[in-house]
Structures are given as structure tokens and as C-alpha cells.
């Protein structure tokens, strides 16, 4: 029900908004709903609001798991669990 996409914070302004980037597309994002936003953070943006920070460690761990699954599949396609 809720389209939201990770964007990187490029700029933080005094009024609680900031500028976030997605592949060269920049838009104003309200940062009032997240704690301690910092330039460089990835945030999940919905309707112009950052609704949560993206946890990069969690994301990287999941991607590492996907890489592992893919590697195991390539090695022995029929034994992956």
C-alpha cells in the first residue's frame, strides 16, 4: 500500500527538511519522522517523507546471503536448499 524507496541524504537544512538523491534525481525530503538524520544516510522515502533509516549492515548481510545462495547454486544447481 505504500510505495517507498531508499534515497541517500545529500543535504540537511535547518527547517527539518533535506535533499535526498536517487541515481542523480534529487528531491526535497522531510526528515522530521526519523531520529538523527545525517548526510550520507540512506532513508526510506514515502510521499516526500523519510519514514525510516535504511540499515546498511542489514542490507549488506542480506545481499551477502543472496550471493552465497547464488554461488552454491552455480556450483551444484540441484542441491541448493
Amino acid at each position, binding site marked *: *500500500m*505504500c*510505495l*517507498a*524507496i*531508499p534515497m*541517500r541524504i545529500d543535504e540537511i537544512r535547518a527547517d527539518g527538511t533535506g535533499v535526498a538523491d*536517487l*541515481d542523480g534525481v534529487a528531491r*526535497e525530503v*522531510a526528515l*522530521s*519522522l*526519523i*531520529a538523527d538524520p545525517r548526510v550520507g544516510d*540512506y532513508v*526510506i522515502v*514515502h*510521499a*516526500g*517523507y523519510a*519514514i*525510516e533509516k*535504511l*540499515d*546498511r549492515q*542489514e*542490507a549488506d548481510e*542480506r*545481499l551477502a546471503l*543472496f*550471493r552465497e*545462495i*547464488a554461488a*552454491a*547454486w*552455480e556450483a551444484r*544447481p540441484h542441491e*541448493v*536448499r
Partner: protein
Amino acid sequence: MKYVDEFRASPAAAPLRARLGRLGEALSARPGTVNIMEICGSHTMAAARYGLRDLLPPRVRLISGPGCPVCVTPPGYVDAAIELAGRGVTIATFGDMLQVPGSSSSLAQARAAGARIEVCYSPRRALELAAAEPAREVVFLAIGFETTIAPVASLVDLAARERVANLSLLVSFKLVPPALRAVLADPDLSIDAFLCPGHVSAITGTAVYEPFARDRGKPCVIAGFEPLDILFGLCGILAQLAEGRAAVENLYRRAARDAGNPIARAVMERFLRPAAAYWRGIGVLPESGLVLRDEFAAYDAEKRFGLKVGAGREYPGCMCGDVIKGKRLPAQCPLFAKRCTPADPVGPCMVSAEGSCAASYKYERKGGR
């Protein structure tokens, strides 16, 4: 797109599909079909956009649930917005609402007839509109589930701080957990597990699903919206079912903390209070919506304009109600793709890009795959 593309096109897709297939086989001793409800319309849409239903094991069904705010909006709400527009009010709305049928017309039709309807990507745009024309009333159509509620409710705070006095909200906020209780209470429905909405969960946290897992024995798996997230989430559900477990499992920790977002919840708490809400196709559910607290009545369009949002009149024969609850597939409605199409919808499920009828029409019709 960082943290998007990697979850979309990946060499892990093939092994995850294989894993899903293997888990499906492990469940083959179970009688009947395995019914997984994807609560959230964005899951419905992503499943259709990536052809994921093609990849499900035989006898595993993905059923669309009531988590599309546009689809559960009653025609009376649209009628009220059109009524306000007729009184010379500017209606500011997310694009999603424009084609939703009211009892006799939609906002797009009202706009063609001269009403001022402004499509906004962000609720903050409504504040700009109101500030730009102080002599004109602006009403924002405040629809949405937990994800959208805090951003929209923040408008009240902004309007107060910036002393914008001509902005109000027509509130029809809805909450996910009461809808799940209603789905489970329906004797005609047999849901085995829930694929829970990642972005709602980012606000609510995982605890709201505990009763469904603990007391009702339904696995609840929180998943993101990229195709690998969904496949991974479905694997998580089938694994629980195969092991006879039912737990709340958060597989979207990169965006949804187990505790949710307390700041967003505090904003909701400050401006809103629970109230009964009317759900299209389901009816009135107690404590299933949020309305503005009395001290913010000045921002409540219903009170400000002396308006009462009723249920309105649904198109005869429209089965959106059954479709929303997952009782019927879109193609089982006699109006589907005949009287009701995305170009000329009679029911909301055909309107919203994430409505199950629209998703089905757009991506899965005619067995065209």
C-alpha cells in the same frame, strides 16, 4: 539504484525459485491449497509486475488482502470530496484517488466539470497550495495506512506553525491489524499465513502481528517489495508451514526495525485518536481508523464544513468487497474487464494501480502470459 537493483535482478533469483519449489513439494501432503494473503497492495502490484505468480509452486495461492487504501475507501468519501469541490474548495490529493468512483462520479470527472483538484506527490504540496492562495480553502484527502498517516498528520503541525489557516484534512485513515482480524473472522476465508507489509511494519514494528501468530497459528512474515524480498518472504512462510511453526518473522530488517518507528507513532498519537471506520467491502470495524483529536477540530474538514461522510452507493454487482477480502479473484466478478476496466472503472479495485483488479487486468488478463 543503490539498495533497489540488487534486490531486483540477481543471480539469486533462480536458486530462490528452486527453493520455493522445493518447499512447495514439502507441503504437498497437506490437503487443499496453501493460501497466503499478501495484505499490502504494493505486494500485489510487485507480484504482478514481476510475474511472480508464475513462479509459485502448484497449490500455493497468493491472495490479495485489504491493504490498498484506495480500494477500501467507500464511495461516500469520494462524494464528500466532490461536494467540497463543488463549494469552491481546492481538493489536494494523491494521484491515486483521482479515478476512484464515488456514488455517481469521480474526482477526475469533477475536475473535467470545473472543480479544482490538485494532484500532489507529497502532502507538503497542499501546504504550499494553501499558502499561495490564503483566500481559498484547501482540503487534503487524508487517506492511507500506518505508513502514510504520520506524513499526512504532520500537515496539521506545519499548518499551525506556519499559520496557514485555510488548510484542513478530510480524514479516512485506516489501520492494518483490525483488517487482519476481520479477515480471520470471516468463516468463508481460510488463510494459512500472512505476507506482512514492509513499510507499514517500519512504522508499527513487529509486535502488532504477534496475536495472529501466537493465538491464531498463522505465520506472519514481513517482507520488502523488491522481487527477491518477496520470493525470500514466501520461502520464509512455506518453511514455517512445512515445519508446523507460526511465528512473526521480520525479513525486511533493513527498513523495518522490530520496534517500528516511535517518532512516527508519536506524531500519530499526538494528532489522532482511534475510531470506528467504514471499510469498503468489509463494513464498519471498531477502532480500525484514526480521526483528528478534538483539539485539532479546526483542521478537520468534516467539522469545518459541516459535512458527514457516509457510505455512499456502490455500483450494483460490483464485487470489490469480496475481492478485497480475498474471497473472489478479480476474474470471478462478472463486471471484470467488461463493464469495469481501468479506463472506466466502477469499483476501486480496478482504479488503484495496486488494486487487485487493476493488477490482474494490467498484467495477468487473457491468460496472456
